[in-house]
C-alpha cells in the first residue's frame, strides 16, 4: 500500500507492506534514535510524536500514520540538546539506550504542563523504563531544567 508521511518535516511517499510497524519504518528512514526495548508497549523507548502527541511506535502500524506528521528525536535536535544537557550533568544518561524515548516524553510533558510537580513528572514518565539510572538522576535533571526554564527562555517554550 502507499503511504505519505511527513517525517521530521520532510514528506515521504512510498509503498509499504500493510503490516509494517511504525518503529521499523522510522528506523528504515535513518531515525536510529528510536529504539525497541520490549515489543509489548511496556518500555517507552520507541516513543515518537504522531501529530505532536507521543505514541509508542512499536505498537502502531506505519499505515496509521498515513497523511500525518511523525517526529522523532532527530527532528527535535535543539530541544534534545538543551534538555539532554541537564540529564548529562547528573550523569543520569548512563547507557543512553532509554534516553531518546524518555526525552521525547519529557518534551511532551514540558509542552503540556508548564510547571509540573514531582508527582506529575513521575506519572507522566511512568511508561518510560530505565534499568540503569534508578530514575532519581533523571528527576534531578528534569527539576534543574525546569528551574532553568523558569529563569529564562528555553527552546521548548517555542
Amino acid at each position, binding site marked *: 500500500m502507499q503511504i505519505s508521511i511527513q517525517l521530521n518535516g520532510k514528506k515521504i511517499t512510498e509503498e509499504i507492506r500493510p503490516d509494517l510497524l511504525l518503529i521499523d519504518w522510522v528506523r528504515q528512514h535513518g531515525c536510529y534514535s528510536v*529504539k525497541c526495548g520490549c515489543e509489548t508497549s511496556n518500555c517507552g523507548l520507541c516513543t515518537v510524536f504522531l501529530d505532536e502527541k507521543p505514541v509508542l511506535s512499536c505498537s502502531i502500524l506505519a499505515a496509521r500514520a498515513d497523511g500525518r506528521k511523525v517526529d522523532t528525536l532527530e527532528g527535535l535536535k535543539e530541544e534534545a540538546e538543551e534538555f539532554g544537557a541537564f540529564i548529562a550533568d547528573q550523569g543520569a544518561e548512563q547507557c543512553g539506550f532509554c534516553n531518546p524515548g524518555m526525552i521525547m516524553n519529557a518534551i511532551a510533558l514540558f509542552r503540556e504542563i508548564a510547571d509540573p510537580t514531582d508527582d506529575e513528572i513521575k506519572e507522566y514518565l511512568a511508561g518510560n523504563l530505565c534499568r540503569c539510572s534508578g530514575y532519581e538522576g533523571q528527576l534531578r535533571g528534569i527539576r534543574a531544567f525546569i528551574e532553568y526554564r523558569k529563569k529564562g527562555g528555553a527552546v521548548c517554550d517555542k
Partner: protein
Amino acid sequence: MRQVGQPIRKKDAMALVTGQPVFTDDMAPKDCLIVKVLRSPHANALIKSIKTDIAKKVPGIEDIYTWEDVPQERFTMAGQTYPEPSPYDRLILDRHVRYVGDPVAIVAGERELCVDRALKMIKVEYEVLPAILDLHGAKDNAVLVHPEESWRSLCPVGADNKRNLCASETSGTGDVDQVLADCDVVLERTYRVQAAQQAMMETFRTACYIDAYGRLNVMSSTQIVFHVRRILSNALGIPKSKIRAFKPRIGGGFGAKQTVVSEVFPAFVTWKTKKPSKMVFTREESQTASTPRHEMEVTVKVGADRDGKVRALDVYTLSNTGAYGEHGPTTVGLSGHKSIPLYGSLEAHRFSYDVVYTNVMSAGAYRGYGATQGIFAVESAVNELADKLGMDPVELRMKNMVREGQFMPAYYGETATSCALDRCMKRAKEMIGWEEKYPCRDMGNGKVRSVGVAMGMQGSCISGVDVGSATIKLNEDGIYTLSIGAADMGTGCDTILAQIAAQSLECPVENVTVSGADTDTSPYDSGSYASSTTYVTGRAVERACETLKERIVQRAAEMLECSSDDLEFDGQRARNLSTGEEVSIEEIGTASMCGNNVALQVTESNSSPVSPPPFMVGMVEIELDKETGHVEILDYVAVVDCGTVVNPNLARVQVEGGIVQGIGMALYEQIQYNEKGQMLNNSLMQYKVPTRLDMGKLRVEFESSYEPTGPFGAKSIGEIVINTPAPALIHAIANATGIWFGQLPVTSEKIAMGILERCE
C-alpha cells in the same frame, strides 16, 4: 588541576541524549543477513530428525544449519579468564536440547520476513526425555543433564557431570560445630533467592562481517571483547588471529553481557557464507534464552552470645546453574566469601556449596554475582538474631562488623586495608532517623511504617586473575589518546579512566580522548566485570601515565639540551630549572613527529593480588498496608564506602540504579516456569521491573576511605549497590508484620496471605 573527585560529564553524554546512532544495531551493515534460531519447545529432548529442505526453499533464505553442521568441540560461553572455571559443556547447536529455548537450528536469510517463514517450516522430531526442573534433588539424580562423554571441566572446582554437579566445595576456619554448640543462641534459617533477569534495555545483539584480510569482524554489545574472541575461536574452531571483536556503545549489561549470548550464531553464519550478518534478540528471547542470576538456596547457621557477640557462621549454598554451567562454579563462592567476612571477629566459620545442573535456562553473571544471594541470607539471619536477642540490629552490627585493619579469614585471608563501614552505619542511622523509627509505628489507618537495615560488601576485582591495561599516547598539540580494553556499558568508565589519566598528566580531561574495546587495537583487558574497571584498569592508566611523563621529560631534555634531572614538568610546560628555558607540551608533542627516537606512547598492565572490598549500609523506611500487603518505599538511604569517589555524579547514579534493581528483585521480579519448563514471564508485560512510581525516594551519601592499592585511593562501586535492598526490605516487612520472609520476591500477595494466616 584536580580531575579525580569531580562530577565531570560523560564523554559520550551528548551523543546519547540526542539519540545518535552509536549502538550495535544502528551501525550494523545495512544489507546484512538476518540471523535467527529455532528454539526447543522441550526442557529435555533428543533430536531424532530435523528436516530443513522445504524451509530452505523459501525465497531469500541463505542457509539453515543444524547440529550436524557445527563443530563438535565443547566450549563455554562464560566470559572468564582462561582456563575458565566454567565447564566446557556447550556446542553451537546440540543434538541434545536441555531447556525450553535451547537452539535447534540457525536460519539466515535476506529479510526478517523470510527468516520467520522458514523458521515455521523446519520439521523436527524429538524424543522427549524426563526433565529436572527443581534444584532440590538434582544432585545424583538418575536423569543426567549432561550425560555426554565430551563434557569437560578445566579447573578443579568439584564438578562431575555424572552427578549433575557443576561445582562443589567446603572451606572454613576453626571448629564451627564446637563453637556453635557453645553459643547461647543459635539460629538456623534457609533463604531462597530467585533467578532474576538483568533486563538491560538493549537486548543481546551482534553484527559480523569479513574484512579485506579475510578475517571475521564481530561487533557486539559485550562487556568482554577479548573473551569473545577466545570463545568464538573455541566455538567455530578457527584461529584467534582470524577474529576481531569490538564493541560500540552498550545499552546496559549488568553482567548479562559478560557471557556470550548472541555472538556465536551470526559469527558462524558469516564465517560460513562470508557475508555480513546480524542477530538481534527479541525481548522474549532475552527473557527466555539468556543468563539470569543464579537461583540459590542459602542455609545460614549463626551463633552468638546473649550479649550479642556473633561467634560463628555456617553457610551452605545450593545453586542452580540451569542447563549449562556459565559462571556456575564462581558465582556461588561469593555467596559465602562476601557475606561471612562482614562479621569481623568470628571464632569459626564454614562455607560449603553445591552447584547443580537442571533443565531450565542457564544462569550467568548478574551484578552482585552471588554476593547478593549470600548477603540477603546472612543479613536476614542476623536481623532475626537481633530480634531474638531483643537487641537493636544496628547495635548488634556495630558490635560485630568488620573494621579497618582487621584480618578477614573468610575473605581469602585478606586484610581490610580501607573500611569505613562503621561510619557508613552511623551516618545511615542519622539520615533515616533510626532511633525514632525503629522498629515500627502503627499509623492507625491500617498502615504500618517500619524500618530495616542491612550491610553489604563486594570485591574490587578477581584478585590475581583480572588484568587491566592502558595505552596512552601523546599527539601533536599536546593532546592524549587513551586506549583501553575495558568496556563502558553506561557506567562511564571511559570518562572515569580519562579523569584518572588527566589527573596523572595534569591536564584537562578534554585533552584525553578515549578509544576502546577492540581486540585489534586495545591492550589486553579481561573486561568490564567483577566491578574491576576503575580499580584494576584505573591503576594501569595511572601507571602508563607515569611512564609517559618520564618519556615526555626525556624528549623535552633533548629539546632543551640538558639532563632530564634538571627538568620540571607540570603538565603544560617542561622547564629547565637552571636556565629557566621552557618547552610547552604542544611543542613536545609536535617534536615527537620529527626526527624522534623516543616513542611517546606507553602501555602498562596491572593485576592486583588483593581485591579490597567496598562497603555499604542501606536502610529503608516503608509503609505497609496490612489489608493489601502493599509495600510503599518512603525513603531509602545508602551510605557507601568505595574509597576515593572518582566521579561523584556517576558513582551516585550507580548506587541509585543498583538500589532500584535490588528493590525489584526483593519485591516482585522473578522468573517462573510451568511444569513443562516453559517460562511464564517472557516479556516486560509479565516480568515487572520497577518504574519511577515504585522506588520512592533514594538518598545516597559517600563515606570515603583511602584504599592504598587503588588508583588515587579508589575501590569499586558497580555491584555492591544491589546487595542491601532485599535484606533491608525484608527486615522492614518483618518489623511491620512480625513475619520473617525467607523467599524472594516478597510480593504484596505473599504479605497479605501471611498476615491472614497469622490472624487465623
